[in-house]
């Protein structure tokens, strides 16, 4: 159970990205965050694994205070929280294998892994993760030799290596075409259902929201303006969150 209480983030330049935000994510839930670019979705996800330090408020996971964690304790928490990025954030010049293995770094001895040593069973685990997302044949390719959809699957395999309790997906399909978007969302859904991993995912497309979300939180200018079931989001609500000029955006509308 992830608990976010009165979370506020003010950037040094004065921008208020999140304002007094509170919500809970029960174990195994698929929560979708919606909102315009700049509404605070990325900031929220990055506060949860502390890539960004919140200004005020408290985040706890299973009773452990993430916001107060430091050093080894923080790394310990981070390794239980996988993250999937819009731009995949792979190390382009490294092999797929190395990219996937890097997901395991939080579990490994800092110095031997810094020297490039990975135990045999970790390589096995990496291969299994790659097989699960269907890229086992790309083990030795360089990450930038892969297509966008394949790169995002490498990103998912990297997350799998963490054996996470929670996955943060920051617009995971925003730089993919509609067909690939569904395929990637299905992999995330599978993790959610088969491994009982909680997912917090930011999305833009109404059809993806209604297809994958269990619950939806809408953000506008850092404030929670909606919390409820995907079926409650009608066109009016969508316009309220996204503003008047919002179109009915459907990922599959182009197909």
């Amino acid at each position: 159970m992830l608990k976010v209480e009165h979370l506020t983030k003010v950037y040094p330049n004065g921008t208020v990205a999140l304002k007094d935000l509170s919500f809970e994510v029960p174990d195994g839930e698929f929560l979708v965050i919606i909102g315009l670019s700049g509404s605070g979705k990325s900031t929220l996800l990055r506060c949860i694994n502390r890539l960004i330090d919140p200004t005020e408020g408290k985040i706890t996971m299973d009773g452990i205070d993430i916001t107060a964690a430091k050093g080894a304790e923080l790394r310990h928490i981070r390794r239980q929280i996988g993250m999937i990025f819009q731009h995949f954030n792979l190390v382009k010049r490294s092999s797929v294998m190395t990219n996937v293995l890097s997901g395991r770094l939080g579990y490994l001895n800092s110095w031997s892994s810094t020297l490039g040593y990975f135990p045999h069973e970790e390589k096995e685990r990496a291969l299994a993760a790659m097989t699960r997302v269907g890229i086992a044949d790309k083990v030795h390719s360089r990450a930038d030799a892969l297509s966008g959809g394949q790169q995002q699957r490498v990103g998912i395999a990297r997350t799998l290596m963490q054996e996470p309790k929670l996955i943060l997906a920051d617009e995971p399909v925003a730089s993919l075409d509609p067909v690939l978007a569904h395929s990637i969302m299905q992999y995330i859904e599978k993790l959610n259902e088969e491994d009982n991993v909680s997912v917090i995912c930011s999305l833009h497309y109404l059809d993806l929201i209604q297809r994958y979300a269990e619950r939806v939180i809408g953000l506008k200018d850092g404030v929670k303006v909606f919390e409820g079931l995907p079926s409650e989001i009608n066109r009016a609500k969508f316009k309220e969150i996204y503003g008047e000029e919002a179109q009915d955006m459907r990922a599959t509308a182009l197909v």
Partner: protein
Amino acid sequence: MKEKTSRSRLVSIFLSALVPGLGQLIQKKYRAAIAIFLAVATSIAVVAWYGKPAWYILPALIWLWNIWDASSLPGGKNAVLPILLWLLMAYGIGGQVTEFNLRALVENSKRSKDIVSAMFQLDFTQPKTEKKEGFTDIQSPCSATPPVPDRTVNGVRVYVVEPCATVNQTITVKGEGFWPNTPTLIYWQNPIGGKAMDAQVKSDAQGNVSLEWVVSPYVHSTAPDPTVPQIHRIKVSQSRPIGGIELSDVGGYVVQGIYETLALAFLSTIVGALIAIPFGFLAARNLMTGNPVTTAIFLVTRTILNIVRSIESLIIAIIFVIIVGLGPFPGMIAITIHTVAALGKLYSEVIEGIDSGPIDAVKATGASWPQVVRYAVIPQVVPTFTALTIYRWDINIRSSTIIGFVGGGGIGFFLWQWIVLQDYRAVGTAFVAIAVVVIILDFFSARIRERLV
């Protein structure tokens, strides 16, 4: 109304004639006023410093234009004319100051033709030869009991018929056991080893050599007191080709110099690159501007790198020649220092340009700081670092060829001596060797860099 306008115009003209730009100033044309004043002031200053009054015509013309301009205010005139006049002043005097002299190129063509044609006769190899040599010692001037000038070494006998040598008298040098019918060099070595006289003869069919030789006063030129008897040496030497070629003396020095230069460039690049890496991280804005302490370190590092980079490595070399003495070592230190500054700056720019996405991703897996550096930073910077380092090696080879001019070792050291000694064949040989080596390494470094980036 009209009267007022013409009166203010007259005031402008009067003020501009008095002080260039003043008329424009009171008409609130500030930029024009400043430009006109500076143009007149700088051109007068330059002409005054140069000291040839004829050039005052140009500032005077600009002054006149300024009055004309003031007369047409508030509109003003097109400024092309004064700009052209000012440029004429700047380039005209500039050309004379740099002693721009195309005639010199033609007038000295005879001398330059000799030099250039010598440079094309490369002195890199020579035919392989074998030698047959003999010698005898001889006293000059004579004492009461001179040692007998007769010596046999390896079956070759050299002797002088007279017991000792007196200046301006004839001695008879004879040799036995040489190759028959072969050109033979006979030369006189003074007591400190200098060549005082030489002569060419030819051996007869039996391998005997004979020479009637007048002893020149020059044999005593290095003696502190020419009346004190000293031991000199007469050498007889034959050489003949045995087929094949070998490096000439110059060729040998060129090879040694090139080798030294390459070693110097290689070592200073590697050492410089290793030292530059930490500087690169310290001078990277994105890593260092997080808090005031690291920002201060960043600013200091950047400033030091910028200052050191602006000092030519030749100048650094001169300082280190004074400290550690002549040779490749001061050259190496100088090029290393320059490499650290140049690469440190370039490395920091590479680090500033890396993608923060992978860093976030690896951090998010719970990786420690060294793991993040190893898996997210290093893979991103290594190829570019390597390419920059190889490019720097290229530059260092070129600068280490001339670092020898100030005593920094390598081919440049030899080249400088040959230029001073006017041995233009050797100079040409060194030029060609440097060009060949630089072109070859350029080619390979370009190929490697292509594959890296």
